[in-house]
């Protein structure tokens, strides 16, 4: 016999232990020695994922659909493998921005949007209500069943029972009180609840141990192990079906859809977000948790199938609810202790979920729905109230009670007609609506508030239409016609076969359409709307979260100044005096600020305070509050100009860099060219030196070896030797001259020079050369003598160079050179024309360069160093003239230059 009193007493003992753990956890947290700061507790707290659905519902699911129950646990396993990419980023972002809930996260991502946070809250609350009702149903069913101990009969439908005699109603009230006591004892600056997490971890151990113990008992003591059960099942045509998935497209698509849903649920269920992200103490804990948590899921599922088989074999046709096999099997075997253990285990699974879920939801309701609204109502003068923390706490408590009562209402009217799993999946499909806005939002900066809002609303509407409303209709709250024939008899719009899509089961169908609407609207809305500055900043801060590590304080686009007393009193209203002082002290030590120095605070502090507040009341509310005391300075035109200016400077600077590097490149190329030319020059010069040297040497050897050569020949040889040495001297002089000119060490003896004399001297100096080649030389000199200033010797050198150059290129047979001197305005023009091969257009530019020689394909490299024209040009330049050339190839070339006349055109003193 198991008295109701015993059950209640055991439950109360269990809850007492929970409170003890929570109290201990909070105490340890207060003195800074956290008991939850290790990966094992973190992984166990994640196991709040396993609710009464897992504890009772999986067996029921396995008894009706076979392996399909596993999808709900395979999905999270897959999701944690993406942990590094997704979870870690979400955790990091939330830590930096002090995110308190999923509504806060999404609102914050899209420019701290109040509307968005509110919409997310509404979706979360409505979506989770079926899920809460599932827990109520499980607890009340197990309670009602255990009361029958040891007899077993199906439970009567509770819809007929009045409110005040309905156990479930009292269960709901009890849970509300329980959650209130747990979750809203005080207002934390960070919205973390260490004691709560410790209790949840403990509950995870209890439910696992209970399931494994009872599973082992049923499998190995009532039956003879896995093999025995499987063998028996195999021989039953009904149970045989549970070993496989149906072989049709629908089964596999729903298999996939359920895996997808559970992948989303593990992140987006408000309670999962709460324990995984908000309550996370240390990011590194994820490393261990990502394999411990799936291991937990695997362990708690090992006995699901055997229990389902056992239940079906024991009471296949007795009408007992398959969801409750875990409880009814030990009851049928009259195991008092195990029955009680299952009951406690189921209660721990349900209470864990309800506590965390309602705390998370009430935080959202308060921070993201009610506070922003209340703060925006000037008539309430809420922003001026002295102590707001008590109001916040009341709102949260009311939120918890409200959520549980709605859960009860849903259970009362609709929940009874569905299995635990199908109720749960409805909630999963609702929270999956957060996926596009959040997942795409943390990887794609282009997502905008409008897009997110449209996507959420569209997806949620489809969810309502295809799952929520039909579940009400199924319970008789809406006309049944609506399901069978569509609204107003439009078959096209039947909620389970929208637009005639009838290949999927209900959940898959709803997931497909809602995701299509959600992602479609999100992407389209984002592409066709423009983000505000705030949205833009937040998007960047979220997407590039790793890049902005340690630079959080520059995060805000809005800058403001405020008076310290205003800020402090505002913080105190929310956090209390002690916490405020502690928080500000930390900031002061971190940034080396002396509070006494000035009363006006910089934007950095204002941001910091906004973050502190966000931890308590959510980012949207915090912004409203801070705005009420801060003289906000939105980005003015000046600041925008500053930013633009900085950007411009950066661009200019980079252009300069580019130009400088281009110059360097050019200089480098030039150097390489020069280097090559120098090599050529050296080879040319040494060749030029060797030719006369060889001649001199061989002639000198002849003279030396044959002293008896005739005097005539001796004279002839020595004259050749003299000529060759002169040539050598000339060459060396030229090289030296060039070197002097190049390095600017040439000494110029500037006097007044009559160019007529210069030309005559040059002509006579080259007379021998000209005569040798039989060239006809014509010199046209003006009558009047006018003078220029310059170095006489150098000018002669220049003329000699030009003449010998002309001689070199003259027509070999009928050579003709014309030298002309004429006055043009106040300049004196000198030209030297030949009738040689001429110089092509391209070569005209080259010939004045040092070492450059015109190489004729037929005649080869001309004699000389290639320095002549270059030297000449330098000399002329020094005399303020420019050496130029005019030429038609084949008809000779004319070199000319002009020098300025000396103003006092006098006869030279010489």
């Amino acid at each position, binding site marked *: 016999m198991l008295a109701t009193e015993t059950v209640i007493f055991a439950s109360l003992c269990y809850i007492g232990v929970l409170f003890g753990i929570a109290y201990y956890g909070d105490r340890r947290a207060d003195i800074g020695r956290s008991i939850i700061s290790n990966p094992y507790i973190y992984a166990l707290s994640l196991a709040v994922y396993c609710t009464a659905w897992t504890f009772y519902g999986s067996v029921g699911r396995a008894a009706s659909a076979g392996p399909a129950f596993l999808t709900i646990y395979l999905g999270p396993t897959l999701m944690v493998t993406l*942990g590094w990419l997704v979870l870690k980023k979400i955790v990091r972002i939330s830590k930096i921005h002090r995110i308190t809930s999923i509504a806060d996260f999404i609102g914050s991502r899209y420019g701290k949007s109040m509307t968005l946070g509110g919409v997310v809250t509404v979706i979360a609350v409505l979506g989770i209500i079926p899920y809460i009702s599932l827990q109520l149903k499980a607890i009340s069913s197990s309670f009602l069943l255990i009361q029958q101990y040891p007899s077993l009969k199906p439970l009567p439908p509770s819809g007929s029972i009045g409110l005040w005699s309905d156990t479930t109603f009292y269960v709901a009230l009890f849970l509300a009180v329980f959650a209130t006591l747990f979750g809203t004892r005080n207002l934390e600056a960070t919205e973390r609840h260490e004691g709560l997490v410790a209790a949840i971890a403990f509950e995870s151990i209890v439910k696992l141990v209970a399931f494994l113990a009872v599973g082992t008992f049923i499998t190995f003591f009532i039956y003879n192990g896995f093999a025995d059960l499987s063998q028996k099942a*195999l021989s039953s045509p009904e149970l045989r079906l549970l070993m496989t998935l149906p072989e049709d497209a629908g089964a596999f698509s729903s298999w996939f859809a359920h895996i997808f849903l559970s992948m989303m649920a593990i992140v987006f269920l408000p309670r999962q977000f709460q324990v995984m992200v908000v309550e996370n103490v240390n990011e590194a804990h994820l490393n261990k948790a990502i*394999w411990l948590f799936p291991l937990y899921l695997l362990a708690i599922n090992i006995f699901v199938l055997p229990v389902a088989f056992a239940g079906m074999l024991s009471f296949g046709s007795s009408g007992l609810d398959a969801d409750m096999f875990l409880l009814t099997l030990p009851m049928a075997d009259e195991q008092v202790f195990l029955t009680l253990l299952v009951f406690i285990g189921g209660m721990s699974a349900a209470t864990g979920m309800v506590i965390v879920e309602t705390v998370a939801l009430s935080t959202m309701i308060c921070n993201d729905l009610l506070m922003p609204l209340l703060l925006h109502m000037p008539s309430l003068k809420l922003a001026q109230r002295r102590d707001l923390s008590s109001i916040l706490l009341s709102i949260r408590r009311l939120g918890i009670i409200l959520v549980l009562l709605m859960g009860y209402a849903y259970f009362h009217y609709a929940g009874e007609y569905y299995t635990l799993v199908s109720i749960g999946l409805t909630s999963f499909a609702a929270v999956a609506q957060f996926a596009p806005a959040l997942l795409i939002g943390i990887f794609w900066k282009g997502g905008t508030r409008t897009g997110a809002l449209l996507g959420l609303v569209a997806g949620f509407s489809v969810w309502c239409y295809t799952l929520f409303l039909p579940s009400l209709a199924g319970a008789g709250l809406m006309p049944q016609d609506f399901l069978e024939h569509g609204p107003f008899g439009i078959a096209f719009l039947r909620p389970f076969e929208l637009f005639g899509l009838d290949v999927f089961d209900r959940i898959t169908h709803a997931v497909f359409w809602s995701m299509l609407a959600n992602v479609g609207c999100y992407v389209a809305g984002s592409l066709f709307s423009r983000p505000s500055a705030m949205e833009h900043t937040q998007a960047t801060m979220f997407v590039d979260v790793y890049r902005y590590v340690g630079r959080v304080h520059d995060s805000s686009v809005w800058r403001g100044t405020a008076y310290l007393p205003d800020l402090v009193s505002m913080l105190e209203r929310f956090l209390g005096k002690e916490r405020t002082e502690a928080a500000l002290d930390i900031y002061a030590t971190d940034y080396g600020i002396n509070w006494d120095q000035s009363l006006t605070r910089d934007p950095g502090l204002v941001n910091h305070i906004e973050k502190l507040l966000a931890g308590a009341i959510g980012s949207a509310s915090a912004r409203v509050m801070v705005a009420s005391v801060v003289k906000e300075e939105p980005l003015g035109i000046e600041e925008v100009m500053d930013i633009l200016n900085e950007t411009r400077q950066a661009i200019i600077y980079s252009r300069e860099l580019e130009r400088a590097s281009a110059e360097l490149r050019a200089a480098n190329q030039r150097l390489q060219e020069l280097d090559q030319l120098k090599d050529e020059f050296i080879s040319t010069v040494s060749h030029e030196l060797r030719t006369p040297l060889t001649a001199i040497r061989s002639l000198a050897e002849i003279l030396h070896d044959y002293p008896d050569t005739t005097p005539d020949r001796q004279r002839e040889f020595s004259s050749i030797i003299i000529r060759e040495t002169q040539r050598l001297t000339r060459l060396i002089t030229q090289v030296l001259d060039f070197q002097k000119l190049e390095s600017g060490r040439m000494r110029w003896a500037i006097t007044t020079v009559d160019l007529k004399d210069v030309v005559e001297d040059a002509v006579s100096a080259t007379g021998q050369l000209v005569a040798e080649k039989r060239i006809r030389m014509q010199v046209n000199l003006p009558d009047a003598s006018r003078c220029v200033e310059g170095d006489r010797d150098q000018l002669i050198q220049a003329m000699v160079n030009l003449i010998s150059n002309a001689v070199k290129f003259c027509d070999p047979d009928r050579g003709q050179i014309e030298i002309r001197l004429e006055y043009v305005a106040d300049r004196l023009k000198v030209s030297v024309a030949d009738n040689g091969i001429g110089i092509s257009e391209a070569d005209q530019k080259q010939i004045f360069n040092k070492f450059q020689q015109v190489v004729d394909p037929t005649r080869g490299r001309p004699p000389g160093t290639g320095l002549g024209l270059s030297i000449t040009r330098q000399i002329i330049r020094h005399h303020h003239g420019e050496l130029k050339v005019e030429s038609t190839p084949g008809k000779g070339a004319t070199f000319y230059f002009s020098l300025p006349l000396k103003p006092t055109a006098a006869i030279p003193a010489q």
Partner: protein
Amino acid sequence: MTRDKINGRRLVGLFLLGMLLFNFPLLHLFNRPMLALGIPVLYLYLFAAWSLIIFLIHMISRSKPDTPFPDHSE
């Protein structure tokens, strides 16, 4: 490359492996009402693949690829 990045890629690879193991064509192979080791084959397969994935996550999250750089998060 930091340890985090390398492990992150390995985990993404593991995710793809999981998607493969837990989905249609491979599931189909084991989708028959038979027993192996006294357990229905589909269940045996699913739990085995699941254990494998968990074991691999464990190995990856524990491993420290050799890297000359200190462990930064980006």
